């Protein structure tokens, strides 16, 4: 009579806690949210994609947007950059030459860095959807 047995439901506060942990973990380390949910395949590919975009962006000497830019586009740029989690802080721990947007490559690198954050944000939203049971 398995069909008469009610499915085991997680408590709403437990779901909220799991979703919060997954979201924070996924933001700090791209793919870690999926890894905590047992989706290691997605986790690996997300880490490769976000890491690839960020590292190529730094190698092309792209620029990270400042926190106090004073204009809406700068604020959006900072938000996109900050979404890449640990990669946002990478220039502070490695010997990096710094941005050079006087060349086209540096300008492209800036877009790579912003794209890395946006892709990681998509990953965090996906992991939250899985944790909430809205997505498989």
């Amino acid at each position, binding site marked *: 009579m398995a069909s008469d047995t009610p499915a085991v439901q997680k408590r709403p506060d437990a779901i909220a806690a799991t979703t919060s942990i997954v979201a924070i973990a996924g933001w700090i380390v791209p793919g870690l949210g999926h890894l905590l949910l047992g989706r290691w395949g997605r986790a690996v*590919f997300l880490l490769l994609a976000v890491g690839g*975009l960020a590292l190529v962006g730094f190698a092309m000497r792209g620029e990270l947007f400042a926190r106090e830019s004073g204009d809406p586009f700068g604020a959006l740029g900072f938000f996109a950059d900050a979404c890449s989690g640990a990669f946002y802080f990478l220039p502070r721990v490695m010997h*990096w030459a710094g941005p050079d947007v006087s060349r086209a*490559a540096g300008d492209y690198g800036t*877009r790579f860095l912003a794209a890395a954050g946006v892709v990681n944000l*998509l990953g965090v939203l996906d992991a939250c959807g899985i944790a909430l049971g809205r997505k498989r």
Partner: protein
Amino acid sequence: MMSGGFHVSHFAAMAAFAACVSVALAALARGTVPARFKYALLSLVLFLAIGVGIAWLMYPFSR
């Protein structure tokens, strides 16, 4: 490390961007693994084809 940055062609930069974004979109998509692999390939080809197409359209205005 990376003291001078590396120099890549415009096409190589676009191809690297397209590859990374295609992998991420396919990883987050629904469906089976083969379906997502096809999605990644299609996305990569469309990124490159549309990018080269727009470049051709802009070429007459480049000088």
